[in-house]
């Protein structure tokens, strides 16, 4: 009995091995590349926490202002004045004072007021994933009993808003703009590239000259011109989508050229002729028979160029041409931190930078790993 079971499982395993698809081989190779896997995990965590649950992770709502104007990061204590260790961390209340020598507003800890830090604390109401109404936040000080106390792990801005909260919400827009923009670029680029390569002739001519035309513009001035054309009375959300469109419109050319090049060689393959002789029409040949052949390459290109998209948004918003307050993106946050005064007095506002850096790095790690895994001739 046991023996037959064992042989059965081995035959199943053998069959599975025999019918391993291309993508399962890619996955197998990708898994062994630790750096790429780490990049992928970082991105999964980032996207999940910034796009789906920033409301839960942040202790306050985005528009929750307080009188903690430009307060530095709150110190979290485990050991109290008497040297006693507490398992539950706590913070002290603060008192606003003016330092008379530097004429700066400073916050001094009032050790008489102790507020315990809690997990899953009730706070500002919100809807989880836009659906479930709740008011539970990952951490914080209970706001019902102490409405004026703030725990600001990355400091506060000029309106007393929690900087960490802003980074979380900003990440949502910045990461999404990269992804949505890249998806649009992908659609644009592959469709144009496939048509260009498949039809050739004047279609090819028009598409290729257009990409050259777009490519001949310097990026930033072109962005600026297009972004300046967005009407100022539009809602921030409309501006956001317009910006995504602009970013993908400027960037599809490179991808279209690469796809075209691949299609030019693929369309001479015998299977295209075979499919045609079986009665397939042009669009079927292009998108069912030719396009899949370019997919592995396209995936790599897409992954490696999402960081460019995110950086472009950041740069544009930093220049004041992209997203504008009241929207919060990483570019908008960087703009806040872009003055010498800000760096001098509120250096914690630079916390945005490591988030951007880690995201970009993770994308590059993932992209490199994908490229190695998808390359059938790779030796590693």
């Amino acid at each position: 009995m046991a023996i037959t079971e064992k042989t059965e499982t081995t035959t199943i395993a053998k069959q599975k091995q025999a019918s391993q698809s291309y993508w399962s081989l890619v996955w197998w190779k990708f898994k062994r590349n630790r750096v790429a896997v780490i990049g992928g995990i970082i991105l999964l965590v980032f996207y999940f926490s910034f796009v789906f649950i920033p409301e839960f992770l942040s202790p306050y709502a985005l528009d929750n202002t307080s009188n903690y104007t430009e307060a530095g990061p709150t110190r979290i204590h485990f050991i109290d004045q008497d040297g006693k260790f507490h398992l539950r961390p706590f913070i002290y209340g603060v008192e606003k004072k003016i330092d008379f020598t530097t004429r700066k507003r400073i916050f001094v800890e009032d050790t008489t007021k102790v507020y315990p830090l809690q997990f899953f604390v009730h706070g500002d109401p919100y809807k989880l994933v836009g659906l479930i109404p709740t008011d539970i936040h990952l951490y914080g000080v209970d706001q019902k009993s102490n409405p004026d106390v703030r725990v600001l792990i990355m400091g506060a801005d000029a309106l007393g808003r929690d900087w960490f909260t802003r980074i979380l919400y900003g990440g949502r827009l910045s990461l999404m703009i990269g992804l949505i923009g890249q998806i649009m670029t992908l659609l644009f680029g592959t469709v144009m590239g496939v048509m260009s390569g498949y039809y050739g002739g004047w279609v090819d001519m028009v598409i290729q000259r257009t990409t050259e035309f777009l490519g001949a513009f310097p990026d930033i001035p072109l962005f600026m011109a297009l972004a300046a054309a967005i009407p100022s009375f539009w809602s921030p959300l409309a501006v956001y989508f317009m910006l995504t469109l602009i970013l993908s419109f400027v960037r599809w050319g490179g991808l279209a050229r690469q796809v075209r090049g691949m299609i030019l060689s693929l369309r001479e393959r015998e299977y295209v002729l075979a499919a045609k002789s079986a009665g397939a029409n042009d669009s079927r040949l292009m998108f069912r028979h030719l396009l899949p052949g370019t997919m592995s390459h396209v995936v790599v290109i897409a992954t490696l160029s999402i960081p460019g998209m995110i950086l472009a948004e950041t740069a544009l918003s930093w220049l004041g041409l992209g997203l504008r307050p009241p929207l919060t993106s990483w570019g908008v946050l960087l703009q806040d931190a872009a003055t010498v005064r800000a760096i001098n007095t509120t250096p914690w506002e630079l916390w945005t930078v490591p988030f951007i850096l880690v995201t970009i790095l993770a994308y590059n790690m993932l992209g490199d790993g994908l490229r190695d895994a998808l390359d059938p001739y790779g030796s590693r």
Partner: protein
Amino acid sequence: MSEQLREPLIEVKDLRVEFDVRAGIVKAVDGLTMTINRGKTLGVIGESGCGKSVTARAILNMIPKPGKITQGEIIYHRRLTKEGQPGLDDVFDLTKTDPDGKIIRSIRGGEIGMIFQEPMSSLTPVYTAGAHINEAISLHHLTPVRKVGDQLAEQVMAHRKVTKEEAREIAINMLHRVGIPKPEERVDSYPHQLSGGQRQRVMIAIALSCEPAMLIADEPTTALDVSIEAQILDIMRELQESSNMAIMFITHNLGVIASMAEEIVVMYMGKVVEQGKVIEIFRDPKHPYTQALLKSIPTLGKKKTGERLASIAGMTPDPFNLPTGCVFHPRCPLFMAGRCDKIAPTWKEVSKDHYASCLLYEEA
């Protein structure tokens, strides 16, 4: 019985295909005339570059880019009722159809299937064998292939899309018919998991899944080894018998053609030089080119060792600069000076149903 029944399916009349390339105009097919009959096999032989494949492509109106059909017609007798015995034929010229149009697309694959020389690259690498067959079926909105005693069900199901399970069953059934072992497993195999012979069988299964009236086999066994070749040929013969399908068998392998075809067309530089029954052509070749071709087959046991194999002298002529008169005259062993290089030969019936175009059979 089949001897008397000669219903034409495709009639190629005076076909001319030209490729306008930078160096000049190449006449790939130059005044070709032939008839393919229903349920019969027509063998087309000739050297590389003599226009065999271009003719096949012209029938499907799939001439590659710089090429153009400049003259002639390809009459297709389309049978409207597939099952009924005295079917009505819709007769029209394939060269007049829109090469991307609906009519020719429904003919391609649906009524005239084609298999290619290179089984290694004729399947799209990202789709399984089953997916390929399903594509062919769904492209032609076909009803499931009938099983024995299933005629009624077939009529009911006419013009209805095939469900996934049915399609899979058809695919497995087709793979079984072309002799692929373990078709239930192979149906989910990707092309790279199949051997060359298996891929060619899958190609045949695809071509046959829509029950075409005709199969164009463009050197289907050239890339396969000899034992697989024999199996593939057996399968094709069996399937032809069971479904009364015409085959246009293109090859340069004389041994294969002798065992496959009933009638042979010999092509040279885009022209038919000789046509006739297989037996007649092999026993009594009339055209010097055919004679030379047949002499160049090595035969076992007949010759003394050390003797050199006969070959055709010279090279195929420059397509941009064809010889005057008979195109074969510079290589012809029976060259008649003053005639062959001046006068173009005409199409002559040298004996019953045996045609050749050579000045040897024309009076001065």
